[in-house]
């Protein structure tokens, strides 16, 4: 690594260390994730504030797809996602959030007005800050941006409203019961949990290709009555 790269990395690490030490101060307590209202499992105050700010910068409200990043529940998605990834990966991801939140100290946005973390910047400055990561000549900086963007976009595109707006919501496919469905229980359960019997076995026959009229999967339907059951 070139000397400037080493210095930069050392600075970034020092910054992350300081930020971790100060984590939580000066951030509002976040709303609980999701309508169920359970506690956040992994993300702390700072991380929720950052994720919501970054998600709204990537996906502002309005336009072709109505929900904003925070309305689409990107932070709650990320919390769930972190729960499912191995601990080492989880640590790295959280580090990524801290790095971009406090990276504004190392890579200040244009129109710089004092040392401010990402979530405290104005909308225009956030855009400029993210653009700095995105267009950097340094591959590691671009990699940070690509990784962050991928995480937030995965969360945004997990939201049923977003998928419906894009006409990309999964369709309802009636279960086809094959020999292995009488063999493999649901994960974690014993064979007694297999819901099918021989009588349910698929008898073959042609199933037509899916098409625009295929109804949406129940989890992706619009729950509002006016939507008429959320057909595609």
């Amino acid at each position: 690594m070139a000397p400037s790269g080493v210095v930069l990395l050392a600075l970034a690490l020092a910054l992350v260390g300081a930020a971790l030490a100060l984590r939580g101060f000066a951030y509002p307590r976040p709303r609980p994730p999701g309508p169920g209202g359970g506690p956040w499992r992994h993300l702390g105050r700072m991380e929720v504030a950052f994720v919501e700010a970054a998600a709204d910068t990537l996906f502002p409200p309005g336009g072709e797809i109505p929900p904003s990043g925070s309305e689409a529940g990107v932070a709650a998605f990320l919390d769930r996602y972190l729960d499912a990834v191995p601990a080492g990966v989880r640590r790295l991801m959280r580090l990524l959030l801290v790095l971009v939140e406090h990276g504004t100290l190392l890579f200040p946005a244009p129109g710089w007005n004092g040392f401010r973390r990402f979530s405290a910047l104005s909308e225009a400055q956030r855009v400029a800050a993210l653009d700095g990561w995105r267009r950097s000549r340094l591959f590691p900086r671009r990699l940070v941006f690509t990784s962050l963007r991928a995480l937030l976009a995965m969360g945004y595109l997990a939201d049923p409203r977003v998928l419906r707006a894009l006409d990309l919501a999964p369709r309802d496919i009636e279960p086809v019961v094959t020999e292995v469905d009488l063999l493999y229980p649901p994960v974690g359960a014993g064979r007694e949990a297999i819901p099918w019997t021989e009588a349910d076995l698929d008898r073959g026959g042609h199933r037509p290709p899916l098409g625009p009229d295929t109804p949406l999967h129940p989890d992706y339907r619009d729950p509002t009555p006016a939507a008429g059951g959320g057909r595609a």
Partner: protein
Amino acid sequence: MSSGSRAPAEQLRVFADYRGPVREEADVAVVGSGPCGAVAARELATRGLRVVLLEEGPPLSARDIVLDGALSMTRTMREAGLRATRGTVMPTMQAIVLGGGSFVNSAICVRAPDFVLDGWCEVAELSATSRKDLDPHYDAVAALSGVAPTPDEVQGRRNLLFRDGCRALGIPSEPIERNVRGCRGSGECFTGCRSRAKQSADLTWIPDAMRHGARVLTSVQIQELLHERGRVVGVAGRVAEPFTGRLSHPVSVRARAVVLAAGVMATPVLLQRSGNLANRSGQVGENLQFHPGVAATGIYPEPTDPWFGATQGYQSLHFVRDGFKLETLWAPPGVMSVRTPGFGHELKRRLAEIRRSATFDAIASCHRSLGRVRARRRGLDPAITWRLHPDDVDILMRALHVLCRLHFAAGAEKVLPGVHGAPDELFREEEAEIFVRRRFGPGDLVTAGNHVFGTTRMHGDPRRGVVDEHGRCHDVENLFILDTGIFPRSPGVNPMLTGMALARRGAHALADQLGGRSAPEA
């Protein structure tokens, strides 16, 4: 492929069945239930041998399939789908589920071309691995897997646009042959087939192996090979909880022979963890190769309904001699969105264009780009180092240029090439010239590599390879390796079918060695 009778349920063990230590005996322990291990297990079982097939992942019932791409990956892929190489950073995915990669892949089945296999024979000093030698095995695995060309009724618009683009440029193309029966064109192969159309190993080869007497132990992580005086005598590991990987009861299987089919990343790690077994050549974990891929998304004037259609339905083998293969591509929206440039309202506008999009990709052979796999200090996850060679970047850029031309020829309004240092959007074919006129570096590309080879390569010379062309370890006569790690180099095309054909051949060589009964009529 069902032979009529049902696979006996008592021959399968799932996580909930383990109450204490597990001890088994067999003629052959097969480690890994991906397409290669599953074929090996089934073929060995048809030869009357007592087979135990061991798989770390669980079987997934149709109800276990998660539709969200990112969350699905955390359950079906190793390291939650976030595994990447060091050196040149590139994501690479390996499955952890009964059926291995065949559960999550796009079911593309292609035979390696003659010239590729002749090249293998030459560089690896092989005498019986020409296309003529492998064709009977290709025929057998293709027949049992239901391999057939993708019919037009499930191509969907985005696959047919590829065909149109190829026609307009005079490039030969064809519907992809896939191992599916009754595909409904849901484009969801990556998260698992809810329609039970994809004939992944868990639906086909594994139940058939059980019908022939094989026992299948899922949720078992094999941690080492047991060996005495230069021979393997079995394998040992622990029960592993699905999705969390938490380890519990010990498991051991004593066997007359072992087949390692744990995949290109896991097989060398298991050998390294077992006292550097079968590594007199020093080649275990070396020669790692990928098929890095690049993709270009075209935006068309009319809706393409890209969610509909076979996940990957059309291809062109025209440039395989030049080092790349062209295909169509679809993946869950969250995964596809990674390629969409920009942010803010610009990003939203571009995302909204996905409904008018088609994505084409190219996979490249990249013979010059090599790497290695090493065991880490703890656990079985590999440390993977790999470097994309600058000359191979040139091939990828050439492939990208062709992809952009295909889109414009098919009527695209614009193309998103996803390359750092090039415009986010191209509006005219001439703009794509940038990919052949300018030199780009490995860091400029958004690439991924899910086809992997070489870490236990076959070679006629025991000093230069780990196994012979039947998969038998040069150093350990009763240890066979039958996964795509034994490829001496890239097959030029999608690897699954070649891996299965080689596994079939190797399994019969092992059955002959163990005195299995004669092979049944195909």
